[in-house]
C-alpha cells in the first residue's frame, strides 16, 4: 500500500525515498542519567502533571498539559533558576492529527542547563501568554501568532509582527505555499490600485532569468541598440559598432570591420 501523504501539504518533498527506508533516531536518554535534570523534573512533577520527559542532545524535553504552562514556567523561573526564555514557537502537525506543538526553550545560567517545555494544542485553541513572566515572550508570541495563527490569551498586543497588519494567511503553516497564495501575489496591486486593476497590471513576473527581446525599456540588445522606448520589430538593421575614438590610442589601430576577418567556422 502506498504511504499516506496529506494533500494540502505544499512543502517540498523528496522525489525519491526508498520504500523500506527506516530513519534512524536521535538517541534519547533517561532523565535519571543527569542528577540536575532529575531534581528539576521531580520539582515540576510534584505540582504538575508531566506526560513525558527525556534527555536529547544534552537538553531535557518535558511534555506538560497546555493549561499548566504559566504555572510551570513560573515555578521554573522562581524556584529552579531558569531565568531566561530563549525561544518559543510552534510546530505544525495539522496534517497528522490536527494539532500544534508549542515549545519553550528555557535556560538556567546558574546550572548551565537548558530545558525544552512542550505541549500540544488543537487547531483553533489559544495558549496562555507568559508575557508576564518573561518579557521576551511578548515578541515571540506575536511571531507565533503571525506565522501560525495561534492566539496567546492575555497578551497585551496580539498583532502581527513580521507580516503586514492586513495580511491574510499564516506563512509557516504547511498548507501555505512557499511562493505565497493568491492574496500574496496580488497584495500590492489590490491594496494600492484595487482588485479591478489586476487585469491591467498583470501578474508579477517571477522568472529572474526572463529577457523580453522586444522590450527596449529595460534591455539593450547588442548590435541592435535603439533609443529607449522604441518599438522593436524583427527586421531591424544592425547598428554600426565603433570600437575606438577617432583620435586613436597609441600603438592600437582603429578597428576596421572591412579589413578584418570574422571566423565563422568553429573547427578552423
Amino acid at each position, binding site marked *: 500500500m502506498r504511504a499516506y501523504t496529506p494533500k494540502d501539504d505544499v512543502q517540498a518533498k523528496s522525489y525519491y*525515498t526508498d520504500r523500506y527506508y527506516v*530513519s534512524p533516531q536521535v538517541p534519547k536518554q533517561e532523565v535519571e542519567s543527569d542528577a540536575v535534570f532529575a531534581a528539576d523534573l521531580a520539582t515540576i512533577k510534584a505540582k504538575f502533571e508531566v506526560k513525558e520527559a527525556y534527555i536529547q*542532545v544534552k537538553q531535557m524535553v518535558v511534555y506538560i498539559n497546555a493549561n499548566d504552562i504559566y504555572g510551570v514556567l513560573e515555578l521554573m523561573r522562581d524556584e529552579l533558576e531558569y531565568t531566561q526564555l530563549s525561544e518559543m514557537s510552534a*510546530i505544525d502537525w495539522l496534517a497528522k492529527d490536527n494539532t500544534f506543538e508549542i515549545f519553550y526553550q528555557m535556560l538556567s545560567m546558574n546550572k548551565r542547563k537548558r530545558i525544552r517545555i512542550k505541549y500540544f494544542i488543537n487547531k483553533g485553541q489559544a495558549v496562555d501568554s507568559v508575557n508576564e513572566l518573561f518579557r521576551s515572550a511578548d515578541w515571540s508570541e506575536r511571531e507565533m501568532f503571525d506565522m501560525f495563527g495561534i492566539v496567546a490569551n492575555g497578551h497585551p498586543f496580539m498583532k502581527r509582527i*513580521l507580516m503586514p497588519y492586513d495580511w491574510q494567511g499564516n506563512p509557516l503553516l504547511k498548507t501555505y505555499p512557499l511562493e505565497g497564495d493568491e492574496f500574496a501575489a496580488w497584495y500590492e496591486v489590490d491594496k494600492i490600485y484595487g482588485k479591478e486593476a489586476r487585469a491591467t497590471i498583470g501578474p508579477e513576473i517571477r522568472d529572474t532569468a526572463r529577457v523580453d527581446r522586444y522590450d527596449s525599456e529595460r534591455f539593450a540588445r547588442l548590435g541592435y541598440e535603439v533609443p529607449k522606448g522604441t518599438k522593436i520589430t524583427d527586421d531591424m538593421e544592425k547598428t554600426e559598432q565603433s570600437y575606438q575614438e577617432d583620435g586613436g590610442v597609441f600603438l592600437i589601430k582603429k578597428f576596421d570591420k572591412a579589413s578584418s576577418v570574422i571566423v565563422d567556422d568553429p573547427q578552423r
Partner: protein
Amino acid sequence: MAQVTNRLTPFFENITFDRDDNELILNFGPQHPSAHGQLRLMLHLQQEQIVKAHPDIGYLHRGMEKMAENMIYNEFMPTTDRMDYIASSSNNYGFALAVEKLIDVEVPRRAKVIRMMLLEINRLMSHLFWLATTALDIGAMTVFLFTFREREYLMDIIEGYCGARLTHAAIRIGGVPLDIQDSFIDQLRTFLNKLPANIKDYEDLLDTNRIWLMRMEEVGTISKEMALSWGCTGPMLRASGVAWDIRKEEPYELYDEVEFNVPWSDKGDNFARYRVYMEEMRESAKILYQTIDMYEQCVINGETELMAHSPRYISAPKIDIMTQNYSLMQHFVLVTQGMRPPVGEVYIPTESPKGELGFYINSQGGPYPYRLKLRAPSFWHTGILTDLLPGHYIPDVVSIIGTTNIVFGEVDR
C-alpha cells in the same frame, strides 16, 4: 478633524491627531539612516521626551524559516549568510553545528581550528563595524574611517579564503571546504600585531571625548532583571551585569582549550556596552593568536583532514569522488536528494558577535527539516526598545539603537 484615509495610507498612519493632549506621534524610520536597516519606531512624544515606543519590524522579512523547510540542509547554508550579514560565518557555523549535533559527527581538529579563526575574525569584523556605525551616528566620523580601514584588512583575509567579503558561506556541515591559503597566517598576524595600537586609537578618540560621554553615560540603562527577562544575550547581557558567554559556559569547538576572559560590566548603560565591545575585541585577538599556534601544531602533527568522515551524511573528499565509484554515487545522492538526518530535534546555541544565535531543528527523517527556528539575538534586542526608550529623549534613541547592535537581516530573518 479625523484624518482622511485612502488606500495608500495603511493601518498605522491612520492615527488621528484630534486628541486634546500634547502627545505627538513620530515615525522614526523605516528609512532613517541611524535605524541600522529597516527599523520603524512609532514614538509617542511629550515635547522631546518619549512616553511610549513601539518598534515595528518585518521590512526585511524573507521567510527564512519557510525557505529552510523547502531546502535540503546543505542548500540552506548560503541563506544563513543573509541573517547577520555583518558576520556571516557565525551564522554558517551556528547552522552547521546544529546539523552536526543532529547527525552526531565529530569535525576534524584542523577544521575546528580554521572555524575558530573564521569565527573570531567575524567577531572582530562585526565589532569594528558596530563601533564605526555607532560612532558615525553620534557624529564621530574619524572613528568610522579608522575602523573601516581595519575591517577592510579582515575582509581581504576572508576574501582570500572563501572569495566573498560579506556573504562568506565559508563553513560546511561536517567541516570546512578548504584549507586556509598560504598568506592567511602572515596577514592575520600582521593585522593582530597592529590591532592593539588601533584599538588604542579609537579609545583615545572616544574614552574621554565629552560628546561621546554625554551621549553614552547613563543613557539606555538596562537592569539585570530587564535584560534577563527580555532574553538579552551577548554584550547586551554582559554589560548589564551577567558574565554569561556561551563560549566559556557551554564550550563548543576548541573554546575550552583557549585562554580568554569574559569582559562584563554592571552599569548596563550605553557606555558599559561600548566598553564591553572594546574589551571583546582584545579577547578575540588573544584567541586568534592561540588559534594560529594551534593551526601550526596541526600542520606539524600532519592532521590534514578538513571534513568529517560520515558516508551516510557527508560527501567523501574530492579525491575519493574522482577516483572511487562508490564515493561518487554517494556524493551524487547527497547532492541531488540531500542528507536525511535521524528523527529528532536539537536546539544548539552559539555565541555570535551579537549574542546567542540558536538553531532549533526538528527533523522527521526527511531531506528537508520539518521545522527550523532561528533564534537570532537581535530580535529581542529590538524588542527591548519597547521598555527601554520611554523616558529618554529623541537624540538618545539614536545612541541606544547604536549600542544595541541590531542587524535587520537577523531581526526579520
